[in-house]
Structure formats: structure tokens, C-alpha cells
């Protein structure tokens, strides 16, 4: 599959992020890394790490709590942007593009109603991360988080070359990373608890949503079976009918792939949903609105919870 312009842009942004952290490893500024990024004493900690640490300590920690709130605010405004713009694991798990994927569009579970949030296996891992921390009393998931491990590996390799520091940790981390992102299929869509947390936080995101202009979309305007946008979407969102989709809009990472592949350039990311579309049933050819008024609050519906 040909590389999209947006993919290249995102890749460069991610690389820049890793590079800044790598430079930080050798400065005294305290830039930190993905687990806690910032400057000096001002830090934005990873929301999952912050939550797990607070659970383990059974107290609220100001800096950690603020981090969670700030990330929540970012997600409300921008959705799950971290996943496709900053996370290095995202780029490692989809090396072969669409071909490797295993969730055929026509096998998406059909829902009765459009939902703001849908539970999938990632939430089971999120619960396990929280549960294990409750039981064992330390941030268990942080030990195996592929995102943190990626940054740790960058540091360890640099320490290897600069100080000649050898350790089995490098081998172990490489192994864990390979196991998680290469051997396990679809880490991001099925297992990542951090991604699940971002989806949860993005449930109330109403800005910059991908919106299909029905009057120019080939499917809705001309009746041509196009589907290009859904095939391009790495979380399998069906923008035309969210009830037939593997994922809800809270999982959109604003990667812009859909907009870029659309032959009619019908997909835009308006800052606010357009009034007209909202009342007509936004971008939905089945006449169902993607979001109705009642559902616009981040209610958690239990429909797809495990065990049902």
C-alpha cells in the first residue's frame, strides 16, 4: 500500500517526539519520556501510570492527578490523538499496512443503536492492569508496557554506546517488544490498555470529528460502493453508519487517513459538528444520527462487555 502523506507527517511528528526525549536523556532539563514528559518540575505523566501509581499508593498525588485531568481535557478536545501522532508502538504494529489486519468490514457486529463507547478486549486488559495493581501494590502494567519499553530501549542503547553499560534488560525488553507488537496481533485495537483509557477519555470528544459531506461522498451522493474511508481507517470506523462499525468515534485517532483516501474529498474535520448535519442525522445513510442528544454525554453502555 502506498504511503499516505498524513502517515509520513505523523511518522515525523512521532520521530521528533522520540528524538526530543532522546536528547533529554543527556541533558539536565528533565524532559523525561513518554511515561512523564515535561520540563524540570512541570510534568505531564502518562495517565495510566499516574492512575496505577495512585491506586498502588492509595492516595491522590497532586502532580499525577493534574496529569490525568490535563490528558482528559486534551482527549475531550482532540480525541485519541496520542495514538496516531506520538505513540511509536502504533507505527510498529502496522508495518504491513492494511493487509495484516484481521477484522473484515463486513463482519463487524451490528449494533441496535449508535454508541459513544464500546467495550472490547482492551478494557479487559485495562481492568487487569488496575486489578493487578490493587492486589500486588505496584504499577504492574508499567513493567510490560511496550510504549515505555520502547523509550527505555532507546535510552539503554544510548547508555550502551556512551558508557559501555551492558545489561540483560536490553535483551529482555527487545523480546517483550517483539512479543507484544509483532507476535501479538493488533496490540493497539485489541490489547492496549492505554489506548482503551484514551478512548474512554475521548468519549465526550465532540470537536474535530471526521465528518462526511453527503452531497459529495460517492456512496451517499452517487450510490457507488466505495468504502475507501473505512478501509483506510486503522481502527475500522464506518463513518457512514457507526452501528455497523467495529469502533465508535471515540476511537478515532485523527490520523486523517480517511480524509486523504476519499476520492471525492468528502471528509473534513470541522471544529464543531455542523448544525444542519446534527439535525438531519449526521453523515449517516441509514438515517440514524451518529450521536443523538441523549447519547452525547459519555455514558458507558454495557452492551459489548465481556462475558455476555
Amino acid at each position, binding site marked *: 500500500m502506498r504511503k499516505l502523506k498524513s502517515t509520513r507527517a505523523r511518522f515525523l511528528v512521532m520521530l521528533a517526539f522520540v528524538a526530543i526525549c532522546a536528547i533529554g536523556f543527556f541533558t*539536565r532539563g528533565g524532559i523525561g519520556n513518554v*511515561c512523564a514528559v515535561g520540563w524540570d518540575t512541570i510534568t505531564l505523566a502518562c495517565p495510566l501510570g499516574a492512575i496505577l*501509581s495512585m491506586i498502588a499508593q492509595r492516595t491522590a*498525588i497532586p502532580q499525577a492527578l493534574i496529569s490525568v485531568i490535563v490528558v482528559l481535557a486534551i482527549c475531550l478536545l482532540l480525541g485519541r490523538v496520542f495514538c496516531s501522532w506520538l505513540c511509536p508502538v502504533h507505527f510498529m504494529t502496522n508495518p504491513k499496512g492494511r493487509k495484516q489486519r484481521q477484522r473484515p468490514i*463486513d463482519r463487524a457486529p451490528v449494533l441496535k443503536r449508535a454508541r459513544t463507547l464500546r467495550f472490547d478486549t482492551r478494557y*479487559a486488559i485495562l481492568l487487569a492492569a488496575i486489578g493487578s495493581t490493587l492486589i500486588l501494590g505496584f504499577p504492574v502494567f508499567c*513493567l510490560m508496557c511496550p510504549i515505555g519499553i520502547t523509550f527505555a530501549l532507546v535510552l539503554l542503547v544510548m547508555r550502551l554506546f556512551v558508557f559501555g553499560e551492558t545489561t*540483560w534488560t536490553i535483551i529482555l525488553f527487545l523480546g517483550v517488544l517483539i512479543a507484544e507488537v509483532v507476535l501479538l496481533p493488533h496490540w493497539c485495537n485489541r490489547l492496549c490498555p492505554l489506548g482503551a483509557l484514551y478512548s474512554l477519555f475521548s468519549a465526550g470528544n465532540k470537536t474535530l470529528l471526521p465528518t462526511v459531506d453527503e452531497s459529495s461522498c460517492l456512496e451517499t451522493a452517487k450510490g457507488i460502493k466505495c468504502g475507501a474511508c473505512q478501509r483506510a481507517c486503522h481502527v475500522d470506523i464506518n463513518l457512514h453508519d457507526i452501528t455497523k462499525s467495529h469502533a465508535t468515534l471515540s476511537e478515532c485517532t485523527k490520523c486523517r487517513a480517511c480524509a486523504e483516501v476519499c476520492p471525492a474529498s468528502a471528509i473534513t474535520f470541522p471544529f464543531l459538528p455542523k448544525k444542519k448535519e446534527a439535525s438531519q442525522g449526521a453523515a449517516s445513510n441509514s438515517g440514524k444520527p451518529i450521536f443523538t442528544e441523549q447519547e452525547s454525554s459519555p455514558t458507558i453502555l454495557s452492551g459489548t462487555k465481556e*462475558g455476555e
Partner: protein
Amino acid sequence: MMDKKTHDDTNHQGKGSPSISRREFTLGIVGSCAVLALGCGATFAPRSALNRPPGGQDETHLLSACIHCEKCREVCPQNAIAPAHLEDGIMCMRTPRMDFKAGWCNFCEDVEGGPRCIAACPTLALHGDNITPQNTVIGVARLVPEWCLAVRGTGCHSCVDACPYGALSLDEDHIPVVDETICNGCGACEYSCISLRTGIITEGETDRAITVHPLEVR
């Protein structure tokens, strides 16, 4: 493609029955158990006691709070912190330990606001108010006489000169002695010890002659 139907497993649910497939359910259960199992494994794996930065002396607290962000290591002006490794125990991986080969801890006495490592820690894994060299003990220095150059009559006293707190002195044989009641484990002696860097290295010498060890009882 939209029209290429491939029904080969339970993934497709009937209309209006939104539940997840058995495969997804299994993945969720297996994944969750894996997280818990690895956590248990890490808890019970052996781990060594480490010299921790000031404010990280309560090992249980440090391990429960540290998210391995390594900010403490980054901000240390003395370059005295290094990440712990697998060799120190799975639980300790990426947590901060003191590396007195690379620097020693002056408790940031010259820095306004006290220890930089404590100030930078976002989860209060390192914590404490009014940390001073007098009220904080990182560990205690120990001399291995067989490795010490002074024992062999070279007249070396690098560590004694380096100790900022007067915990080291020379006895009547000109051999350094540690006053354990004064030593706070700052590591200046270990940092300055030249035993491994001179031509006369004792056979079997694996470390510097004077090193800081974490306190036994925490």
C-alpha cells in the same frame, strides 16, 4: 471489500445482538491473566537491595509509586542516578539506583529547594521535606581491606580526602576507617576510590575498595 463475505468463525453476530465473539472473549481473559501472572512473577522474583536516591529509602513505597519515567535520573546535577536493571530484580527494572561510579550525591545542598530528584518525581516515589545530608541515609560505606591500596602501604587516602562529612579517618596504620554513625552513603568515597584504576589491582578484585551498601534493615 464490502461485498466479499468470508464467514469462517464466530465473529459475525446476528443482527441486533451486540456481543463479542468467543475469540475476543478468550483474548481478553488470557491477556488479563497474563498481566496478573507477570505481576505475581515479578513480585516473587528475587531482587537485590539497592542504594536509592534521597527520599526513596522506603523500598516498598518506592516500588509501589515509581512509574519508571527516569526524570530523577535526568535532573540529577551530580549524575549520580542510573536505572536499575534486570540483574537487580524484575521489579526494580528502570527504577532509580545510585551509581557512585558516575557521580556522588551532595543532597543538592547547593540547589535551592533541595534535592532535584525529589522535586522532579511526578508520583512522589521519591519524597520528603527538608532533606539534608544529616537526616538522610542512603547507605553506608564499607572498605574491603584486601583491595585497598592504603593497606598495601601506598599511602593512598583519596576517600578520606573526598568525604565531605568527616566520616572517614586514617587509623594508626594509615588505613581508612568508616564511622558508621556519621556516614550517610553519599558515595563521594566510592566515586574517588582509585583502587580499580591503578596498575596494582588485586586478583579477584571486582569492585572499588570502598563502596556504599544499602542498609540491611529498612
